[in-house]
């Protein structure tokens, strides 16, 4: 009787060892691949040119090329299996395939059901197809316009919200194509990789993709969830990193005639970047992971990162406030350069308005009778021209004529400053002439000249300052001609991050503080002037 439990225990232990041993052998997929001498990769068959069938029914394309290169590295044969968007992860879990390279977007949900291999090897975004002769140069040009879209696309709603599009949603791509053909919308919102294959169709050859892709969703290779941290993951990860470094992915992209993606170019730049000590930025850390800046930023959680980034993500997780301008270096730079541009616009517009105002008033009072009437009329016309229309007129209307006749192009910010200064300057001319009239009434011999300009300015101070504060508030108008100031920067960040509530409040508060500071500065100047007068 006494030997029974021991035997029992021994059997259990043996069974456990067998199971564990077996698991060990099975768990390492790399061993299996090498034993069978074949790497089985799931790719798409209906997504040209990323994965498609050739005339002989063989799977070819961008992704099959990556699979072939992997097999070459592992020194095994390659077997390609066609998978679809619905079954690719299931087949992976079943063990029917070793790796999925099938336009798989890297999302948090998918990270829970499969092992996503970092870095990402490609990215798709959203863009528009537009008929030839469209005048689209930025996403903001589509604001309020009728834009066709295909039902069911995940990006329809966020894109409509971010760019304030008037979406006309059609059932299926065929209907959407027809709607665009018939001019029922100015453009068609679609996946940029899908668009690339549509444009290969000769019927669509003269259509264009005028806008840069947005809402970029990175693509990743995936292996089974149980393979997390395995040798296979490491090998795949190193392979992709090598491809980014060598620029090989760019070659493959070119081989398949794919429109160069910014993602690949950026990744190549990032993976070849070196620190000041000569080490590459993207080298594995002691933990075996890639540094934060080399990973998919959309999917990081606060436990993965340190520093400001950590604080920013912690705020996001706790409160839902996505303050990307705090923790994301790219957004922060975008916002700060926007702020700098806005400050530049404000200061130069103030100076320009004063210049126009003073010169106008001096010219009017110079004694030439013809000039007086001319300046007054011009000032009246200038004050009754909406600055926004003036900017359009000069930037597009006059700008185009100048480019074609003389070949000069003007920077958008220069034109915005010119138009705003002209508009505000006209108001200042009127204010100065009124003040000058008052002085003439008081002192019969008075005439406006360089010498007594400060006196007139002081008399007209309140209305001049009111005009200058208005021009400070109006600097945002430069955004309509794509000057990269605060509004442009903020809407760009909203477009990328989808955080309109946070960014619009940040924008509003920033502008509010800028206007308030301007008012304070002018009040301070007024106080100093009064003190000076008393002394």
């Amino acid at each position, binding site marked *: 009787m006494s030997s029974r439990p021991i035997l029992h225990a021994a059997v259990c232990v043996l069974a456990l060892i067998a199971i564990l041993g077996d698991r060990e052998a099975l768990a390492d997929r790399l061993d299996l691949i090498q034993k069978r001498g074949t790497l089985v990769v799931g790719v798409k068959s209906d997504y040209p040119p990323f994965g498609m069938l050739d005339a002989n029914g063989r799977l070819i394309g961008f992704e099959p090329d990556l699979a072939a290169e992997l097999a070459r590295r592992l020194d095994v044969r390659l077997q390609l299996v066609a998978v679809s968007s619905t079954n690719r992860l299931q087949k992976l879990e079943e063990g029917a395939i070793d790796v999925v390279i099938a336009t798989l977007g890297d999302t948090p949900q998918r990270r829970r059901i499969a092992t996503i291999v970092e870095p990402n090897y490609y990215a798709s975004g959203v863009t528009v197809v537009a008929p030839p*002769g*469209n*005048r689209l140069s930025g996403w*903001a040009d589509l*604001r*309020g*316009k009728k834009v066709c879209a295909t039902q069911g696309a995940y990006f329809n709603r966020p894109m409509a919200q971010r760019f*304030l599009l*008037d979406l006309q949603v059609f059932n299926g791509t065929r209907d959407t194509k027809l709607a665009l053909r018939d001019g029922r919308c*100015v453009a068609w919102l679609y996946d940029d990789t899908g668009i690339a294959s549509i444009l290969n169709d000769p019927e669509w050859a003269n259509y264009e993709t005028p806008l840069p892709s947005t809402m970029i969703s990175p693509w990743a290779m995936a292996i089974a969830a149980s393979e997390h941290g395995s040798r296979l993951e490491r090998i795949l990860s190193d392979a992709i990193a090598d491809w980014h470094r060598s620029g090989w992915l760019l070659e493959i992209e070119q081989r398949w005639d794919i429109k160069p993606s910014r993602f690949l170019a950026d990744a190549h730049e990032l993976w070849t970047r070196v620190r000041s000590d000569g080490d590459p930025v993207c080298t594995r850390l002691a933990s075996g992971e890639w540094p934060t800046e080399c990973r998919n930023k959309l999917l990081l959680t606060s436990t993965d990162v340190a520093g400001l980034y950590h604080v920013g993500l912690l705020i996001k997780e706790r409160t839902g406030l996505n303050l990307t301008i705090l923790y994301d270096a790219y957004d922060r730079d975008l916002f700060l350069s926007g702020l700098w541009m806005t400050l530049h616009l404000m200061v130069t517009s103030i100076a320009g308005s004063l210049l126009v105002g003073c010169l106008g008033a001096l010219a009017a009072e110079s004694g030439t009778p013809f000039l007086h009437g001319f300046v007054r009329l011009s000032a*009246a*016309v200038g004050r*009754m*021209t*909406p*600055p*926004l*229309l*003036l900017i*359009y*007129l000069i930037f*597009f*209307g*006059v700008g*185009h*004529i100048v480019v*074609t006749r003389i070949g000069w192009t003007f920077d958008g910010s220069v034109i915005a400053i010119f138009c705003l200064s002209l508009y505000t300057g006209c108001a200042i001319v009127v204010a100065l002439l009124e003040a000058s009239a008052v002085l003439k009434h008081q002192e019969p011999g008075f005439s406006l000249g360089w010498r007594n300009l400060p006196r007139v300015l002081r008399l007209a101070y*309140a209305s001049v300052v009111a005009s200058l504060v208005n021009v*400070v*508030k*109006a600097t*945002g*108008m430069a*955004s*309509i001609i794509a000057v990269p100031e605060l*509004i442009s920067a*903020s*809407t760009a960040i*909203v477009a990328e991050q989808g955080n*309109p*509530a946070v960014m*619009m*409040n940040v*924008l*509003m508060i920033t*502008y*509010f503080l800028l*206007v*308030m500071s301007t*008012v304070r500065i002018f009040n301070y100047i007024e106080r100093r002037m009064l003190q000076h007068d008393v002394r």
Partner: protein
Amino acid sequence: MTSAEIVGMLLAWTPFLAGGFAWNILISLVAMAIGTVLGAVLARLRLSGRKSLARTSLVVTELTRNIPTFVFLFYLAFLIPAEFEISGQIHVFPAWLKAALALSVAVVGFVSDNLFVAWQHWRNHNHAAALLFVPSWTMYLLIIVMASSTASVIGVGEIVSRCNIIIAAVGGDETMFWVYAYAIGYFFIFCFPLNWAMGHVKKRLLARVGTASPQKSGK
């Protein structure tokens, strides 16, 4: 394009542009209405005997003075949903109303300040000086009409948006210049007579103020 063709094109699109300009006027009037009512409330509070109320009103007025309408336009466009639901019914929040709301903020500050002064004059039986509010208000309406062109950036079908539609439809490089210049003409033709008339009214009122009370009223 010959000049005859340009004139023909502009004439053909005139009703379309005029319809757009009607939107500008509508947006401006709605903005003035909202702003005047709220501004009048603020001005009245500033005159109230209770210090806390007067101070609060002054702070709110200060706030509205520092808000740039162009930025506020984006703010409302992004943050007010295009559609909202009240007890199962879907209501649309039109973009033009967002534009009017954004513009009304500037009107609130203006009315609060100017009506406050006018009210004081009226109380002192200085009626002519108080009536100066009317030409100032009308001239401010003109400023708002010009600012209403910014509604185009959030997709309101007013005159600037329609200019862009015409340019896209007609094509041609010189079209842009003429269409925008023509649109500027609309603003001028609307604003100039009103501005001139109000300037005249202002002068008359100022003359009456001058004869009624010799002391100059400060700003």
